[in-house]
């Protein structure tokens, strides 16, 4: 048992750190959830890509560095510690790309991945529908067979980044009426500027359009943009839903960096004798460290060939509650001034509030933990 990086991994860390020290902008770009901020973040992705830092875990042929899991974690730590900008291409890189690596054709990969790596094409996810939140199998949007492709009809919502993104991917019901709702779904990619697509941005709590509704009215999608077999979309989506570099092993780097900023805020602005706040700062710092070490243990198991199991539900509950506690503590540390919406802590707080809801609510995660990890009887869900 050890936590030591190999000399090659340490060299990788040093190279990443040096590049970031040189390139990370001193003044962060405007919020990702504004038109100008979105554009600025594309420019940053291009800068990353130019030196092959935008998708380190991808194969070199698609612009990556073939980084294994440990190096990916190291890169993420360095990236967030350097205070580098948010990743506008995250949905594509962590959700769509793994699916393409596993189920896409060589042609799809060659066509889609390079422009994703550079930020030239930004992808939005289109999973949820108004009546299908955590209960994803109850999707109603349809893909209807047509000559040379499919016509998409329906209504998607909570589509992150879709207010400004270029393309989207999601599941559509191609064989309606089957008895099992998980069957008959098809995984498709489509253009957000295609005829028939209406994008309606939805304001977040703070009014910023962090997601959008998509109204799809006979949107044509050519056969080449179907991933995997038609009707097999659920299996295609699920096989990478737990992708290790995405939500499952959600980067500890982000929480470590936030905990460090919180500790610094505490040292700068905190009243040293206010142990009530000090304990909450300590819990956040300890929690970030626990999450990092848990992730290293998880990564070690994966590197030994173990699969990802239901323990990803432990992750989800832990990081989402940590993130929220961390930001609530920061706002409380700022006192009445914490109400001000200008600051990074306030934006981070609004972002963190969504954590316990998306990617499977924490209630559902707790059901999964109880049933699959503890073996308790399945209740009605």
């Amino acid at each position: 048992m050890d936590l030591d990086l190999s000399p090659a991994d340490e060299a990788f860390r040093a190279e990443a750190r040096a590049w970031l020290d040189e390139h990370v902008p001193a003044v962060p770009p405007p919020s990702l959830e504004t038109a100008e901020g979105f554009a600025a973040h594309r420019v940053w992705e291009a800068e990353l890509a130019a030196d092959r830092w935008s998708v380190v875990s991808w194969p070199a042929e698609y612009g990556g560095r073939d980084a294994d899991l440990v190096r990916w974690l190291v890169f993420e730590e360095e990236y967030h510690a350097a205070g580098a900008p948010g990743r506008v291409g995250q949905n594509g890189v962590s959700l769509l790309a793994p699916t393409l690596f596993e189920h896409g054709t060589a042609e799809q990969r060659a066509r889609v991945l390079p422009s994703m790596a550079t930020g030239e094409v930004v992808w939005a996810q289109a999973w949820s529908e108004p009546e299908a939140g955590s209960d994803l199998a109850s999707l109603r949007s349809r893909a209807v067979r047509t000559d040379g492709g499919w016509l998409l009809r329906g209504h998607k919502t909570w589509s992150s980044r879709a207010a400004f993104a270029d393309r989207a991917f999601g599941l559509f019901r191609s064989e309606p009426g089957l008895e099992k709702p998980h069957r008959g779904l098809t995984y498709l990619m489509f253009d957000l500027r295609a005829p028939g697509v209406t994008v309606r941005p939805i304001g977040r709590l703070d009014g910023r359009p962090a997601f959008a509704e998509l109204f799809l009215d006979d949107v044509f999608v050519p056969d080449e943009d179907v991933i995997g077999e038609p009707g097999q979309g659920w299996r295609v989506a699920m096989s990478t839903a737990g992708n290790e570099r995405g939500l499952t092993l959600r980067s500890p780097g982000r929480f470590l960096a936030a905990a460090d900023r919180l500790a610094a805020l505490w040292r700068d602005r905190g009243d040293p004798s206010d142990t009530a706040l000090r304990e909450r700062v300590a819990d956040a710092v300890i929690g970030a460290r626990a999450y990092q070490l848990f992730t290293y243990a998880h990564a070690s198991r994966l590197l030994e060939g173990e699969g990802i199991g239901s323990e990803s539900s432990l992750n989800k509950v832990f990081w989402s509650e940590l993130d929220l506690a961390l930001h609530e503590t920061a706002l409380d540390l700022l006192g009445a001034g914490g109400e001000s919406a200008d600051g990074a802590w306030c934006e981070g707080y609004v972002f963190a509030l969504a954590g316990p809801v998306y990617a499977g609510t924490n209630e559902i995660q707790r059901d999964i933990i109880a049933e699959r990890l503890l073996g308790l009887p399945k209740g009605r869900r």
Partner: protein
Amino acid sequence: MRFLLDTEQRAFAASLDAMLGSADTPAAVRAWAGGDHVPGRALWSRLAEAGVFALAVPEAYEGLGPLPVDLAVAFVELGRHAVPGPVVETVAAAALLGGLSALGEPGPAERLLPDLASGKSPATLLLPDPAESSPRSGTADPAALSGGHALDADAAAVSLVVDGDGLWLAAGHGPVRASLDPARRLARPDSGGELLAAGPGVARAALRALAWARLATAAQALGVGLALLGRTVEYAGRRTQFGVPVASFQAVKHRLADALIALEFARPLLFGAALSMAPADVAAAKVTACEAAYGTARTALQLHGAIGYTAEYDLSLWFTKARALRSAWGTPAVCRAEALAGLSGGGRPRS
């Protein structure tokens, strides 16, 4: 001993509830957040006509008060409907002016109070952090009480600033900054302006204003929490997932039960504080009501799922207010410290 609202007080609450419920208050909130004060001012006038602001103004100055219990009744309804504007600050300004008058300085009260009572002049207020009554607050910010801003100074006709022993009528204000609650607009009143009063009475009157501000905030927070709970109960009963109403899940039921417990035990603290107006009682009510409201807000957001998180769905109006009220007019840490300093000892009723 009859620790219950009387019939008249209940009728007052019901009439405010009905009035605000039919006035499209959410639209007024959104307009206010965008800097358009017209619908909010119309609402303000109706509240004034109902006597809300007059409850904080002595009869000598065309008011009905001071009647803190009735004021608390009214502010629960204001919170329930997320009424925008410097409602708490107007009450606190009235308490300050009324207090100064009682201390032998009736001039500012004579000049300003009638228009506060009538609703003609919304007011706002910036108090210094009262070191004598505020133990360490967990922040080095010198203006811990308000973050250095006065709420809605851009909409107020009267901006009062207490600075040491001086009470100033500010002439203008700095740039408006956004709050986490878009309907709260933060600005620092310009320093200087007209000196309305000076002397040790100002600081004493400021403490009185602080107590009234906290009482009104506690009441408003309780109303915010009750609205959040009510909306969430309704939504969870309607929304289905996995084929059953969300409200039939035991985990959901227990979270809502906990929210009700927190709110229903904040309520007697609020009215007990209104009866005594003792600083420790008011501080206890403030922290308890605000924590209950914020806890309910978190539950509401979680149980609504993504829709609760959107600006266009009304839930956000109450959610963001619950968060903002929590730190307004004394953080939870400050209020707990004051409550402990004043409440302990005796185990016997205080009244």
